[in-house]
């Protein structure tokens, strides 16, 4: 069952410019995004910084107002709700942020931090409140001896557990996890991931899991959406998207994860350049200036999400990046290629032509 979904979600921010602050630039943070979070499932949102992941999450939580499109919780548009109904929805949608030290009030005790959402939503007697807080602490692997301490007395992993306990306090159905483990050590990350998995099973929670670490995503996600510059470029089941990405960006992203195996050293050239500015995004496919298999069409026409191999892909030439990506470039060659996406070097230019020529043959050979 779909709990939370977005329909053509678009969020633009205007940035005032110049001395007089009269003219404004528009940041295209999120454009036309459709996502659906199913009950008890984890949807992961991945992409580089500046791709709009967090803005999508904020819009889904009702923290930013969409420029266009809808955010529906159980079919009701949350952006149009006010007062009591909005509060009822806030109860079901909770969030855990990336940096536990800045998302917990340093002057509040653990007890106050966890009690705060309960005080907003419930009118409980002290005894009932204490019981619930003790239960929540136990759920996240802490104890009542921690009740009267403040956030600075805890390690990053423990703080993240407190933030999770706070999110769980009002029995939400959906929890948005915005990079919940990226500020943690691997050993602590493993424990937080196991905890989240366990809580999801026990409490039938749905997660929107925002991350840039694809190895983490692979271990928790049921479905994955890959974003680039405010648009979804590929979305589908985690197993399919992460093991056989079809969009060249998704492919580059999965290939960029450094594998902890010295016998499998990555030899392909890294994705060149940086994410362009969202103020003036590239025409056509927003990824085309960095893409290894771009064609003329890519710079003029924006590809729409189409179904292919059991997932949706927005690409004019999906599925060839892995074959085309220039491999085995030594670092010295790579440096000359960097930052010159407009003038590709010889090898890459040769690669660019091949998808259009050999596309039908290759497509036929795909399983």
């Amino acid at each position: 069952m779909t709990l939370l979904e977005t329909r053509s979600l678009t969020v633009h921010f205007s940035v005032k410019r110049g001395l007089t602050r009269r003219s404004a630039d528009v940041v295209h943070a999120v454009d036309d995004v459709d996502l659906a979070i199913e009950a008890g499932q984890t949807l992961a949102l991945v992409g580089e910084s500046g791709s709009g992941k967090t803005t999508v999450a904020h819009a889904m939580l009702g923290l930013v107002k969409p420029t266009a499109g809808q955010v529906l919780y159980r079919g009701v548009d949350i952006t149009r709700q006010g007062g009591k109904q909005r509060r009822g929805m806030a109860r079901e949608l909770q969030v855990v942020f990336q940096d536990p030290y800045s998302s917990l009030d340093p002057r509040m005790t653990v007890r106050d931090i966890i009690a705060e959402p309960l005080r907003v939503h419930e009118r409980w007697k002290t005894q009932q409140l204490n019981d619930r807080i003790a239960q929540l602490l136990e759920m996240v692997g802490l104890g009542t001896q921690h009740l009267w301490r403040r956030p600075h007395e805890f390690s990053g992993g423990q703080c993240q557990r407190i933030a999770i306990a706070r999110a769980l306090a009002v029995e939400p159905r959906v929890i948005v996890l915005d990079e919940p483990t990226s500020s943690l050590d691997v050993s602590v990350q493993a424990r937080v991931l196991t905890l989240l998995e366990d809580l999801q099973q026990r409490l039938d929670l749905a997660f929107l899991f925002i991350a840039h670490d694809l190895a983490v995503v692979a271990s928790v996600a049921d479905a994955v959406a890959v974003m680039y510059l405010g648009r979804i470029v590929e979305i589908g089941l985690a197993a399919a998207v992460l093991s056989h990405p079809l969009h060249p960006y998704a492919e580059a992203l999965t290939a960029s994860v450094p594998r902890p195996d010295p016998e499998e050293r990555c030899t392909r050239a890294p994705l060149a350049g940086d994410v362009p500015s969202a103020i003036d995004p590239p025409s056509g496919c927003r990824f085309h200036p960095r893409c290894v298999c771009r064609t003329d069409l890519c710079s003029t026409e924006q590809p729409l999400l189409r179904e292919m191999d059991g997932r949706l892909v927005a690409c004019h030439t999906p599925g060839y990046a892995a074959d085309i990506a220039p491999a085995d470039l030594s670092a010295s060659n790579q440096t000359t290629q960097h930052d010159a996406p407009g003038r590709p070097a010889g090898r890459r230019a040769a690669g660019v032509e091949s998808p259009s020529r050999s596309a039908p043959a290759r497509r036929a050979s795909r399983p």
Partner: protein
Amino acid sequence: MAKLLDIRGLKLEFRSYRGVVKALDGVDLAVAPAEILGLVGESGCGKTITGMAVLGLLAKPQAQVTSGEILFKGDDLLKKSEGEMRALRGREISMVFQDPLASLNPVFTVGDQIARVIREHKGVSRSEALEATRSALSATGLPDHGGLLGSYPHQLSGGMRQRVCMAMAISCDSHLLIADEPTTALDVTIQMQILRLLIGLRDDRGVAQLLVTHNLGVAAQTCDQIAVMYAGQVVEQGPTIEVIKRPYHPYTTALYGCLPQGKLAADLSTIPGSVPDLIDPPAGCRFHPRCTHVQAECAAQKPALIDVGPGHQVACHWVGRLGVVPGERMHA
């Protein structure tokens, strides 16, 4: 081969109001010329402190080296005066930090900052320094188009800033680069670009590197040698492939088990307990309270590094007692 950097039995303490923090407890490390040594471990294990100690960047009254030596090209850096260290920093040994925005000066242009390092060390003219700046920037993959030299750090992307920091580090042809988590603040795609650059510096310019990272993937992809640190001690070191493919120390194995590499979250193994407080560290092997193979002697005596393979050393009583055959993998 003669070692470029040879740290022997380095013990370092911090005086804090709570007591003495025993941050490094007998660290032995060596970096050969044109070699990348990866220093891996959890936060607080002393990786960064080791790098800062080499450059003499730790605040003096609080940080005290109680024993050991840091030999660079045979000279003990700990015996050098502040003036001699100043001449060395940026010239012979340079450092790249985790957050490039915090390590660049926001009120000077990129060109000014790099040229200043060159003028300071080489005493060349302004125009010569700018020329050297251009070549350093292009060596890190930033050709000077569109006035990069005249731009300020905030105008650049994260990846470009880190390249600027690296250009500054190599501008005087340093022999040793200490890179402290150089890619942690960057996206994976940019991380890969920077790692390629580090490998390129080793291969093309012969720059030896001490790469501090908590990411075993980064270490596996980039380093020639790996040293695993835990609570101020080196617990295992050796060639990358040996340490990652055939780890002996229970901590290395446990750390590797925490990686979500192709595993479901429910199947991830974890390390019980937490990193100890170094004011009152556990006696003997500092890992023993969290170790699955703990024995009586572990709490009594600090294990010495023993050879388990060619260039592969482990500090563990349990491994020592087992009398392992070098090269044979013990852990599934």
